[in-house]
């Protein structure tokens, strides 16, 4: 049946209506298919709309006029870039120097990455830093990770000398040292980020 229908379709596509009809005459289903196809061929092209309604033409034109006006007022990308860069011009050299400095610090560091574990202690995030090689590394890393923190108290552990030392970026008076190797956050007024390094934790 599928083959007959495809043949009927082929004849109709080629404009050979009579051959299609003759082929379809062989069975009721084929005839019904032929009639349905004839109806589709006659009706589908009539569904095409040859003209856009005038009201729609006006709406489109109006919208395009609006967009044209917007485009004319809006600065080009080159102009936007020039406006953005203008205030930066006076800062460009200092910024370059700072950037270069940070890059040098990072490159000079013995450690290519700072490993850490993050824990939630009450409402604070505690980062345990492992084997940070220098306070400068911590500082750079901190500034990147916890820039929104108001007070940051940093401890780092020198594994080789078994010594805990601390670098205070901003002193937190609410942190109580309870024992030598453990620090607890005392109250909710503590800094949002507390970073510390514990000798018992290793990456």
């Amino acid at each position: 049946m599928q083959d007959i229908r495809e043949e009927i379709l082929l004849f109709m596509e080629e404009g050979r209506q009579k051959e299609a009809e003759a082929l379809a005459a062989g069975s009721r289903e084929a005839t019904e298919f032929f009639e349905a196809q004839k109806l589709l061929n006659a009706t589908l092209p009539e569904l095409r709309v040859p003209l856009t309604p005038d009201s729609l033409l006006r709406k489109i034109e109006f919208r395009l006029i609006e967009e044209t006006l917007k485009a004319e007022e809006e600065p080009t990308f080159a102009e936007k870039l020039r406006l953005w860069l203008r205030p930066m011009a006076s800062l460009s050299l200092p910024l370059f120097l700072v950037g270069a400095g940070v890059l040098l610090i990072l490159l000079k560091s013995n450690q290519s990455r700072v490993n850490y574990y993050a824990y939630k202690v009450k409402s604070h995030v505690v980062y345990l830093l492992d084997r940070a090689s220098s306070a400068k590394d911590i500082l750079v890393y901190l500034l990147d990770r916890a820039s929104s923190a108001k007070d940051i108290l940093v401890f780092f552990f020198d594994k080789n000398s078994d010594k805990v030392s601390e670098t205070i970026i901003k002193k937190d008076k609410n942190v109580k040292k309870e024992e030598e190797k453990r620090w607890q956050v005392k109250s909710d007024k503590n800094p949002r980020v507390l970073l510390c390094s514990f000798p018992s934790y290793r990456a």
Partner: protein
Amino acid sequence: MSSSDSGKLSQSREQNAQPLRSREMEFDQILQGAKNHDRGAWQMLVKEYSHRIYSYSLNFSGSRQFAEEATQEAFFRIFKSIDRIEANPKIFELYLYKTAKNICIDNYRKHKGEHIVEEQDFMIPKWDPDYATKELVWRALNSLPQEERNLMIMREIEGLSYEEIATMENIPLGTLKSRLNRIKIKLAEILQKLEKRG
């Protein structure tokens, strides 16, 4: 609309299609004008091509309101991307249809294929003498999955050639032809079922 008018329609399509399609140099100038935000150029593009998008969107959705919105949206998108459009009227036309298709399919997905058309918004007016036949055929077309419907609209309603559709849809020509044949057989079956249901 009687069948004798369909001959006039296809003739009018050719008349409408010829002016810019055949005069590539003029199209190139108009497109360049459009890229320079020349309003006259845009007016010509809208006048020449908007009915293609409108017709496609209307047949895809059945809704006059949606078709109007889709046509406006399509030209808005074309406006935004005009700098990237090639100065070839045929390619531009295919690009228009592709834009219309994307808008229609996005809308179809948004409504999860159940976009109900209000009677007063339906694409075929009640006073059309062939309303019953057209409505039946459209319902059959609307029963097809969106991709099949898209191909049928482009081929059987908008009259694009197999080659144009194959280019647009990035399908091999042979695959497209056999796919369309299967869709036509399926559509005829749907129509027969709808007719029997009454």
